[in-house]
């Protein structure tokens, strides 16, 4: 049997860029977090019934007995999480979802947009292969140093030009060099990536509003080439051809 929601303790919770937080948690007993890159947890930082639903966050890293989530404060839920201090507890359920396919061959690129960088750290680490990392941001780049620890080539873009290429990350992405592409970010960006990579393996991490996170409510479904799929169960990782099936 899987455990339900379990309490974890906040070790650190820091704003690493404007509105972007990194939180590190561990379980009170010395148990380890489970999970593959691309999988996610549902988090509740409240005991009351408002907010009502837990919030999904991708595993950003697992090191020893500590799990890291990287998150952007969007609304009330992430705001509540951002206010937690070391020693505070929150509840989490997971790991959930399918995760990225790690059994791959060939040249690999990772392309993230904004907070889509979150699951990519753990992915890079787990691939344990040579990877080129492309990450685009709007105003402010973050997590570049973490990435550099794992890969040789990091390409950065910002829309305002504050770091790296001024513009979109897809402007400087060179698909011809790669066989496998992992991407996470705004749908429009992922669609662009996919359209640049026809014929290649494109794995993308999808988002949708979730209630249960475990596949029961059918709230998080998307239409795919192979029918209606649950982002929380058959996903969040889908292949590009599954998602962009209209052509």
């Amino acid at each position, binding site marked *: 049997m899987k455990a339900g929601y379990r309490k974890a303790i906040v070790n650190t919770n820091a704003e690493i860029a404007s509105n972007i937080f990194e939180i590190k948690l561990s379980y009170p007993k010395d148990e380890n977090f489970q999970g593959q890159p691309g999988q996610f947890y549902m988090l509740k930082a409240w005991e009351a*019934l*408002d907010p*009502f639903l837990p919030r999904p966050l991708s595993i950003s890293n697992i090191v020893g007995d500590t799990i890291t989530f990287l998150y952007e404060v969007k609304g009330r839920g992430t705001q509540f999480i951002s206010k937690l201090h070391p020693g505070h507890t929150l509840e989490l359920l997971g790991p959930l979802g399918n995760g990225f396919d790690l059994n791959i061959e060939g040249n690999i690129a990772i392309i993230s947009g904004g907070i889509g960088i979150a699951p990519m750290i753990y992915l890079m680490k787990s691939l344990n292969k040579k990877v080129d990392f492309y990450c685009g941001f709007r105003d402010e780049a973050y997590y570049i140093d973490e990435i550099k620890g794992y890969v040789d080539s990091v390409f950065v873009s910002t829309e305002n030009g504050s770091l790296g290429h001024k513009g979109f990350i897809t402007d400087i992405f060179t698909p011809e060099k790669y066989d496998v592409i992992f991407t996470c970010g705004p749908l429009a960006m992922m669609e662009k990536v996919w359209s640049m990579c026809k014929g290649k393996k494109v794995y993308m991490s999808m988002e949708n509003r979730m209630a249960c996170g475990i596949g029961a409510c059918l709230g998080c479904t998307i239409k795919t080439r192979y029918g209606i799929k649950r982002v929380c169960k058959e996903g969040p990782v889908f292949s590009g051809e599954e998602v962009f099936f209209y052509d």
Partner: protein
Amino acid sequence: MIETKVNICEVEFKNPVIAASGTFGFGREYSEYFPLSRLGGISTKGLTLEKREGNEGIRIYETTGGLLNSIGLQNPGIEGFIREELPFLEKQDTVIIANVGGSTIEDYVKAVEKLNETSIDMIELNISCPNVKEGGMAFGIKAETAFEVVSQVRKACKKPLIVKLSPNAENIVNMAKSCVMAGADALSLVNTFSAMAIDIKSRKPVFDNIIAGLSGPCIKPIALRMVYEVSRAVDVPIVGIGGITNYKDAIEFIMAGAWAIQVGSGNFINPNISIEIIEGIEKFMLDEGIKNLEEIRGII
């Protein structure tokens, strides 16, 4: 010793806690968290005669103390259910209730006929889904229309028949009486409330269908009132539903007159919530010296 068993229409439930339709899938996902045999029963995701893909657009939207949903009866159809889900459910040693939705009386009747030949224990007729055009909702508003569909289904149905009422009914008590007159063996209430939300940035309704269904603790006080009123007005067993997230809520519904209760949205915030509610009820019974829930059913 305490006894949590409840007998509803000759079907024995181990305890009064049933997983509510549409919030528990067909049990598979939750079976990873606890043995489904611990539950009093499971009401399946709403089944329609034919497979349905459900609604487009946003399907889930959080509100204060609850959520709006517009799933739209995505389901594998009765035959898909019988083929792919029922074999699993049959093995779980808990009461299986097939929740049936539909758009026409004919569809309801056909669906029920197909279920007659299966091992399911009971049928829960959903005449109240707000999320499908003609998705039964039309039947759930006016007592006369409900009478018609329930009568027809009753004739076709060889299983104990629970009719699930909509809180959007014009008059919940008349609706209940009408369904009982038409042959309902039991009533469950409430389904979700017709409700909505607007995205003020895009200036559009959040849901493609505009109207969605509200559930969760926010609706509990209204649902409880309806269960209270209905349980006083009819003589069949009542299953209370609406915003139950802990054993205290469950006891309130039982004291209002419910024989059993269903847990819906609560499952989303805690997959083990039903187990906690069952254990809470047991502890309450021990603490308060209640041997059988009958002692407090409708006691207020």
